[in-house]
């Protein structure tokens, strides 16, 4: 179980310093936060972290003297994704929700990145000249549109099968065949001292064992004043009802067990761990699904799915 870092007083500090965050969490969430025993994990070094938490229930039960490259991933999660790897590009298959949500995520990325890098959003290839890394790229659902928008894309995923599928699909189109796919992790890229203008990790952080360390890796991959975009699912009553109960059990949009509700992060938590990793969140938006039209759209409602855009601020840090 991922460790959560907050006590209530920390939360209040966050509200005042981040103006774009939506209003205070619901009373239910606040009550939940009060009840949770939290511990601060920023002090111990990365490798020893999984063993130093007595109160965390690591459901994989693995001894984690693991190599640095897998330290932030959960084995069970990898197995889960490897088993449905062939269906990535089947737009009616288990990844259908991602396909349907994709244009909306891309719209957010396009507007925030164009604004940050001063690119013209009305150009067909606004990301020309930008190096972007898609962490947890899966079958390349996000990487391919980014490449079509002109970016030099590197896609990384820890599941070998995903990378193979992604490579095969990308080679079908000349424009996307330039994407570089690697079966590796964010931490390994950091060790290789790779740097990117934008680091994108969508729907990944909820599958990661240590979100705080993951965010630090993301920050290390970004150039100074680079961009980071992270999306995930909020840990709220509403998200339990929709993303777990409705999506996995009732509507069968996702295979059961895709998500662990306890691994979800609230926006406040995400902002805080990003802050500690030297990324300031500048914008946040939510995704809402309209069942009548069957389409997703961006909104201010971050109670279930949300996406955050931040900038790496090592240039400006005064520590």
């Amino acid at each position, binding site marked *: 179980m991922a460790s959560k870092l907050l006590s209530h007083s920390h939360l209040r500090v966050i509200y005042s310093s981040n103006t774009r965050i939506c209003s205070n969490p619901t009373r239910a969430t606040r009550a939940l936060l009060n009840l949770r025993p939290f511990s601060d994990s920023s002090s111990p070094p990365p490798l020893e972290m999984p063993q130093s938490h007595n109160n965390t229930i690591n459901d994989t039960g693995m001894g984690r003297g693991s190599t640095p490259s897998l330290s932030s991933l959960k084995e069970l999660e990898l197995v889960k994704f490897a088993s449905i790897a*062939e269906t990535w590009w089947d737009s009616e298959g288990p990844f259908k929700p991602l*396909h349907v949500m*994709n244009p909306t995520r891309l719209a957010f990325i*396009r507007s925030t990145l164009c604004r940050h890098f001063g690119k013209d*959003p009305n150009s067909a290839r606004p990301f020309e000249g930008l190096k972007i890394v898609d962490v947890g790229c899966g079958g390349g659902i996000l990487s391919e549109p980014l490449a079509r*928008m002109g970016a030099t894309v590197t896609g990384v995923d820890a599941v070998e099968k995903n990378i193979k599928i992604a490579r095969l699909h990308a*080679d079908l189109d*000349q424009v996307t065949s330039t994407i570089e796919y690697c079966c590796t992790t964010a931490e390994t890229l950091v060790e290789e001292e790779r740097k990117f203008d934008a680091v994108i990790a969508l729907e990944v952080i909820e599958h990661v064992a240590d979100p705080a360390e993951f965010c630090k890796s993301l920050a290390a991959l970004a150039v100074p004043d680079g961009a980071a975009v992270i999306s995930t699912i909020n840990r709220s009553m509403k998200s339990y009802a929709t993303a777990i109960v409705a999506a996995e059990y009732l509507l069968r949009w996702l295979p059961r067990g895709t998500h662990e509700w306890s691994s979800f992060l609230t926006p406040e938590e995400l902002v805080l761990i990003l802050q500690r990793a030297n990324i300031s969140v500048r914008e946040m938006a939510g995704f809402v699904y309209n069942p009548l039209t069957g389409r997703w759209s961006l909104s201010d409602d971050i109670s279930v799915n949300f996406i955050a855009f931040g900038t790496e601020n090592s240039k400006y840090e005064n520590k």
Partner: protein
Amino acid sequence: MPLTKHLKVAIIDSNPALGSKVCFKKEDPPDPRVSTVTPATISLFKDVGAWQYIERHRHAYFDKMQVWDYTGLGYTSYNARDINKEILGCVVENKVLHGSLLSCIENKDFQKTIYPSRLTSMTLHPRSSPMGMDSTSSRTPSSSLRHLAKLELTDGNSLYAKLVVGADGGKSRVRELAGFKTTGWNYSQNAVICTVEHTDGNQCAWQRFLPAGPIALLPMGDNFSNIVWTMNPKESMDRKSMSEDDFVKDVNNALDYGYGPRPKSSLLGNEDMFSWLRGYVTLSANECFEVPPKVVKLASERMVFPLSLMHANDYASKHVVLIGDAAHTVHPLAGQGVNLGFGDAFALSRVIAEGIAVGTDIGEVSLLKKYEAERKLANITMMAILDGFQKAYSVDFGPLNILRAAALHGAHYISPLKRSIISYASGEQRLPLFS
């Protein structure tokens, strides 16, 4: 549109008008093949800068419309000022429309190639099986073209495309090759089309419903008007072959004193029944019944076309999409067919631009289905209404005639309904009644 400027476009059309720069002079007699474009279509043309070319040639705006039937029980007249607009539509010859669109694209800088040929075969590569893990992906040209649609033309050219747009009319070859199924039926009616001349100018569109089908007189400017006369197939053949004088007599008969009496312009009706609506009554409700202009001469050949209703069950599948008559054909009684087609075309171009903005592959089904969902509703609604009209007016039965007349009266006097009808027919409103 800056987002789509980089797309390479190939136009495959064996129409000779596309090849050489055919200039048509003002003195040419008006072509009987015309289209009535609604204000919505006009504004779309203006947006892309094509309307200026139309204004250099013969075109006719009209701001009034009168609809009545042979029973003489009622009539309705519409005026553009009912919805605070200047025009109800514009009648333009098809060759002028083609020419203006061609001039428009010639002046834009994007890669376009015209292939004056026809499609013989088309192969769309459906991704039927999931990709095998062990298949090697060689970077030969053939593999990178594998995911594109391949078209073969009669002149021997082979083209590869990300997206094939079937805009080739009611008997679309693209639709046939792509295997789209259609639903529809033939109206047992043909339309006789010709241009006629009359003594005075005409700025009103006239339509009279006769037992066998409506006859419409549409202004074309310069004392010419276009006739669209729907009738059963045998009569249409007779009318095509009869002498010109006889035909002109028949036309005048159909427009005015034949088949039934003229409706009375019910000024009295205004006083008693609807006086309480007085404040809300539209301008045209106060207008008397007017007699259409008398036709003096036939000015072009007569053409006959069979009429049918057709709707493709799907407009889009991987790499291919249908627009216009290739996707749907309607009865000409309300002049909507080509306007639905232009609506399709502009909607598709907008959807493609939105897709490119977020890096979508333009041949992807999910993107094309967005276009389909948007247009299907609009097209089917219009088709259902037109079909309803066609059926309602094809039966000559006393009580039904009275019902129809009552409906006509209602459309004439009940202003909100009338405004709704005019807005919808002008393309300003997407759905009748509920917008």
